[in-house]
C-alpha cells in the first residue's frame, strides 16, 4: 500500500555488479518505501536473483558501481549478517539444504541472534518451540519439519514455506522474496500468499521477484518493474503484470531500446 507518511527503506542508484568479472547488473535504479509491495518481473537470466543476492551481500558478486542506501545507511558497509539484523530478508529462490543442523536449532539460533541484537529476551528451546509452532500454523506447516535437518529432503514447496516461516520469525523491514511462488501448487500458493499478506504492515516493505503473474493475484503489488539484461526497463502499476502475462516480455525490451535511454549500452 502507498502511504503519505511512508519513509524510504531502500534507495538503489545505478547499481552495477559482476560475477567472475562479467557484468550482470548494468545500472539499476529502484526506490522502495515503507508499506509498499513491489514486483520485479522479467525473463529468465535477466538478473533478478543476482539483484536480490547483491542486496543480501552474497560474496560471489562484486559491486562495480552505484549506491544503495538501506534504512538510511550505506548498505555496502554492512556485512550480510548485519543487513539481516537491521531488517533485510532474502527468501531464496533455491534454499540451501544443511544436513546435520536441525531446523528447530537453526530457526532458534537465527531468532535469538536477532532478539539479542534488539536487546530483547532470548527464548529457550521449550519457549521457542511453542512460539514457532504458532507461526507454523499460519503457513499450515507440519511441526515435523522442526526436527528435520534444514531443508534436507524438503520438497520445493516445503522449502519455500520454510523461507516464509523464517520471514515470520525475523519480521524484516524489507523482505525480498525470490520466486517464492515457483514450485508451489495452487493450495500452497494461496497459503504462502496469505502468510505474506499477514506479515505485510505499513512499516515494512516487500519485493516479490517472480516471472509469473499468478502470485500477484494473491498479493497485489503497488509497483511492477520489468528487468531485462541487468536493468529495470519498465515500471508500472499492477495492471502491467496482466499486460505482461498477455503479451510476454519482448515488447518491453523493444520499447526500451527504441527509447534510447542514456544509460543503455544496447547490444551488450
Amino acid at each position, binding site marked *: 500500500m502507498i502511504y503519505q507518511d511512508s519513509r524510504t527503506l531502500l534507495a538503489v542508484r545505478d547499481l552495477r555488479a559482476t560475477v567472475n568479472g562479467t557484468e550482470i547488473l548494468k545500472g539499476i535504479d529502484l526506490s522502495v518505501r515503507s508499506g509498499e509491495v513491489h514486483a520485479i518481473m522479467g525473463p529468465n537470466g535477466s538478473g533478478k536473483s543476482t539483484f536480490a543476492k547483491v542486496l543480501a551481500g552474497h560474496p560471489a558478486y562484486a559491486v562495480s558501481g552505484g549506491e544503495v542506501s538501506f534504512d538510511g545507511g550505506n548498505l555496502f558497509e554492512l556485512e550480510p549478517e548485519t543487513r539481516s539484523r537491521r531488517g533485510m530478508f532474502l527468501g*531464496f529462490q533455491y534454499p540451501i539444504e544443511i544436513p546435520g*543442523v536441525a531446523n528447530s536449532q537453526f530457526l532458534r539460533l537465527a531468532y535469538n541472534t536477532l532478539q539479542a541484537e534488539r536487546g530483547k529476551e532470548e527464548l529457550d528451546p521449550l519457549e521457542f518451540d511453542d512460539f514457532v509452532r504458532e507461526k507454523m500454523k499460519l503457513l499450515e506447516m507440519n511441526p515435523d519439519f522442526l526436527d528435520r535437518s534444514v531443508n534436507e529432503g524438503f520438497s520445493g514447496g516445503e522449502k519455500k514455506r520454510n523461507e516464509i516461516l523464517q520471514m515470520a520469525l525475523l519480521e524484516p523491514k524489507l523482505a525480498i522474496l525470490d520466486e517464492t511462488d515457483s514450485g508451489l501448487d495452487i493450495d500452497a500458493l494461496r497459503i504462502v500468499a496469505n502468510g505474506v499478506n499477514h506479515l505485510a504492515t505499513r512499516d515494512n516493505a516487500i519485493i516479490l521477484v517472480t516471472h509469473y503473474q499468478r502470485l500477484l493475484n494473491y498479493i497485489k503489488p503497488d509497483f511492477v518493474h520489468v528487468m531485462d539484461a541487468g536493468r529495470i526497463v519498465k515500471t508500472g502499476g499492477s495492471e502491467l503484470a496482466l499486460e505482461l502475462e498477455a503479451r510476454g516480455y519482448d515488447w518491453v525490451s523493444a520499447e526500451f531500446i527504441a527509447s534510447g535511454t542514456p544509460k543503455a549500452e544496447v547490444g551488450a
Partner: protein
Amino acid sequence: MTGTEAGSYLDSLIRVQAQPPAAHSSPAWLKQLRARALERVGALTVPTTRDEDWRFTDLSPLTRLSWHPVQGAPQLASADLERLSLPEAAARLVFVDGRYAAQHSFNHSGLTVANLPAGMAEHGASVEAHLGRHARFEQDAFTAVNTAFLHDGALIVVARDAVLEAPVQVLCISTQKETASYPRCLVIAQPGSRLTIIEEFAALHQGACFTNAVTEMALADNARVNHVRVQRDSEAAFHIGNCAVSLAHASRYHAVGIAFGARLSRYNLNVLLAEEGAECAIDGLALIGGRQLADSHTLIDHAKPHGLSRQLHKCIVDGSAHSVFNGKIMVRPGAQRTDSSQSSRNLLLSGKARVDTKPQLEIFADDVKCAHGATVGQLDAEEVFYLRSRGLSDAAARMLLTYAFGAEVIGRIGVASLRRRLERAVQAQTSRAA
C-alpha cells in the same frame, strides 16, 4: 632411527615399568603369555615411516621421550570423576595411570564387570581362551609391550542371553605427567547377549604421557555389542590403541570411535567377521587442530559369506593438524554375498591442515557388493552465506556447520549424556578455532 635404537627404546619401556607385586600370583598360563610377549618385545622394533603402515605417522618424537614410574596410589578428585561419569552407567571401572581404582568403580549390572585379576577367579577358562588371542602381539610391538605388562584391566563377561541396556563405562585417566600406561580390556559376549561399552581415555594434565591400550572383544553367536571409544588424551600425549574384535555367527558389532586428543594418536581397529552372517558398523570422528596428528587404521576382514559392514569415517582438521585414515576391507575367498560400504569424509578448516585418506579393498570373492568413497573439502560457501543471511555471524555460521559435520557421527552414540558432553566438546573446540 636405527632398529637397534628402537629395540632399546622398547627395552627402556620395560625397565621403567615394574610388575606389581601381585603379578607373581597370576595363573601359570598368564605368566607364560607375558613371557612370550616379553620375548617378542625383545625381537620387535618401533615402526618407522619406512613401514608402509606407518608412512605418515612418525614415532621418532615418542622414542626420544623417557617415562617415570607411576607414583602413589590410584586416586581421583571427586570433581574430576563427576565430570567424566555417565549417569546412565550400570557399571564403571576406573583405571588411574593404568592401575585399577576400586574405590571409584561400581557394578550394578548383574554381569561380571571387574578388574582382570579378580574376574579371572570366576572366568579363568574363558579368559584364558580369549586374552591375548585376538589382539596378536607377535608382529605388533605396542601390543607386545602391553601384553608383557598385562595385569590390571577391564573384564566384562556378558552371560548367555543377558541383555544390558544401560552402558558399562571403562575410564582410563592419566593423572601423572611423563608416565606410560597400558590399559587393557577384554569383553566376552556370550551367545545372544547385548552390551554397550564406553571406553574413555582422558588426562587431567597437559603434559606428555604415553597411553598404549589394547582391547579385545569376542562376540559369540547372535551377540550384539555397541562400543564407544573416546580418546581425549592430553595435548602433549602419545596415544596408541589397538582393538581386535571377533564376530561369530549373526553377531553384530557397532563401533563409534571419537579422537579429540593427543599430540599423536594411532588407533588400529581390526574386526574379523569370522562366521556367516556377522555384521559390523564402524563410525569414526577425528576433530583435531594445532599440530595434532590422528591416525586411524581399520581392517574389516570378511572371512565368511553373508557378512555386512558399514563404515563412516569423518575428520575435521584445523590448524596444521594432520589426519590419516587407512580403511582396509578384506573379502576372503569364499566370503560370497559380502555387502560392504565405506565412506571417508574430511573437512579442512585451514589451508595448512592435511588429510591422507586411503581405502584399501582386497577382494578375493566374486559375488560381493563393495562400495567406497572419499571426499576432502572445506565448508560450503553457500551454506555459510545462507546462515549469515539469517543474522548469524561468519564465525557462528562456520561453527554451526562444523558442528553439524561432526554431529552425524556423535549422533550415532546411543548414550544421551555422552552425546551431549561430546557435542559441547565439539562446540568448544570449533569456537576456539573460529
